[in-house]
């Protein structure tokens, strides 16, 4: 059987020991999987993504990526750091935090430059990425003159420009209009078909069945509540209610069916 990309073994994390944000999590993520992490606000989805991307380090337990332990010491190793950052791309929830360069062009060039591509290749890479996402016209714009949807596209472009194996997305559809949401779903589907591993944290149930082949659900105690196929988990209304992801009277469409509230 194929080796998992990420191995989490009894992984816990919290800024204060009595308030864990991720608690004793065991998880394996395999190459080419498309995983959606579901959970109510504050259930630890974003924290998990930051742990997987080596931005935060565990308080207890073990986490390994590509067969190497993911800890502060290893990430200080130049070669491992470069290889890991190239392989794992992170699209942040707040695009403003991600777009720190003076122009869109510089922003997209940042990743490839840090990873040591030569200037000619960087130029070509940036232009191709901008064209792929249909934002070539924004190249010279400063980020403060972009709309929310445009910012998200640029943020995704910056990450795609280094051709990561694994794509981590934190609430990618937040604040996007339906048209841009649709565009994003289609992009994620193509990336999945191209063999990328995609891990998305969201509470937008309407996109889950299209982008996921595996769903992980967190409860409000920051523990894993379920791990399975989207079809099974999304139709399990009681489960979604238990983790406080939906309200008794929420209804949403899935697999051509509508999940309705029980008649009161």
């Amino acid at each position, binding site marked *: 059987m194929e080796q998992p990309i990420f191995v989490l073994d009894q992984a816990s994390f919290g800024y204060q020991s009595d308030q864990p944000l991720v608690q004793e999590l065991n998880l394996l993520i395999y190459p080419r999987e498309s995983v959606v992490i579901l959970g109510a606000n504050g259930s630890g989805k974003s924290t998990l993504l930051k742990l997987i991307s080596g931005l935060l380090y565990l308080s207890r337990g073990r986490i390994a990526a590509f067969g190497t332990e993911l800890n502060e010491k290893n990430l200080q190793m130049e070669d491992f750091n470069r290889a890991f950052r190239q392989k794992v791309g992170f699209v942040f929830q707040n695009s403003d935090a991600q777009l720190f360069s003076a122009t869109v062009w510089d922003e997209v*060039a940042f990743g490839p430059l*840090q990873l040591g591509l030569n200037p000619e290749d960087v130029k070509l890479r940036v232009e191709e990425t901008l064209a792929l996402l249909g934002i070539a016209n924004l190249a010279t714009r400063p980020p*403060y003159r972009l709309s929310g949807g445009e910012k998200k596209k640029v943020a995704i472009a910056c990450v795609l420009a280094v051709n990561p194996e694994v794509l981590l997305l934190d609430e990618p559809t937040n604040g996007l209009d339906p048209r841009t949401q649709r565009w994003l779903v289609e992009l994620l589907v193509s990336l999945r078909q191209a063999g990328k591993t995609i891990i998305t944290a969201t509470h937008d149930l309407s996109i889950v069945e299209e982008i996921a082949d595996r769903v992980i659900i967190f409860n409000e105690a920051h523990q894993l509540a379920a791990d399975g196929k989207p079809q099974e988990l999304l139709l399990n209304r009681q489960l979604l209610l238990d983790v406080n992801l939906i309200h008794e009277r929420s209804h949403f469409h899935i697999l051509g069916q509508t999940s309705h509230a029980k008649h009161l």
Partner: protein
Amino acid sequence: MDLPTWLQENDIGMCPCGCMGARSKKNFVEKTLFELARVVRDSIFSEELAAKQGLLQSLDPRSKLIGFFFLLLAIAIVQNPVLLLLAYAALVLLALLSYVPLGLFVKRVWLVVPLFTGVMLLPALFNWLRPGDPLITLLNFGHVLRVGPWNFPATLAITRQGVKGNLLVMLRVGNSVSLAALLTLTTRWPELLKALRILFVPKIFITTLEMTYRYIFVLLALVEDMFFARKARMLGPGSLQENRHFIAASMGTLFGKSQAMSEEVYASMLARGYSGEIKTMSSFHFKLWDWAAVLLSILLSLLLFVSDKALGGNF
């Protein structure tokens, strides 16, 4: 959900008597909002001006920087006011060829220079500070004035040397500021910062400046939101104390938010491969035209210098 009764009371329409009340004065919330909008408007305006297809816009920012550096040196050395006036005329011509609105170009410089430089130079006009040939006598005391250990001449006058000197400094400052204005108005800010590399400014300073400039707008948007929220909930002008509290609270919020933001920005830099040393790349191209412009500005600077030596500082 059970709403409390006060939330269920409805009163559509304004005050039944139809009165509008007295007009309240614009308070600091409105003024701040207006100023915030102005900052953004100005920056968009400069951005557009820098994107026009004018003479100076067509130059590589680095060649502009070098060329202007030499011209700045020449202007600082030149003693002859006629040459300085000619130089200013040339700058105005450059501004016109670069689609810089003349009104803005002249106002930006000449409203500021007399105010700051003029005030500083004012004392040098008088013979009490700098002896010289009187041009206009203002006061005549008839005898030498003794104030403590100081002796002042019997007359207070504006001297010819004072006027000449002040005029010269004003012209120099005006020319220098105009040069700087031309440079900043016709170059996009991020490109100008990048061009500073050629003057050996370290990369980390430039990147930090770039990011600072970038986040000014994020924080401006935040301040704007806070002030709009305040304006929407304000029923009257509010007491001074209330306003002070609001300002203090918004400063605190802004500080907290900018710190949280800086952490997130750093995380996103790390995620994209930043490892302590920033790597940048500029897409500048030094064309033949840029070399010509640098050469031309060096020649002009020399010409200014040589003709100044030939003509001398007299007028």
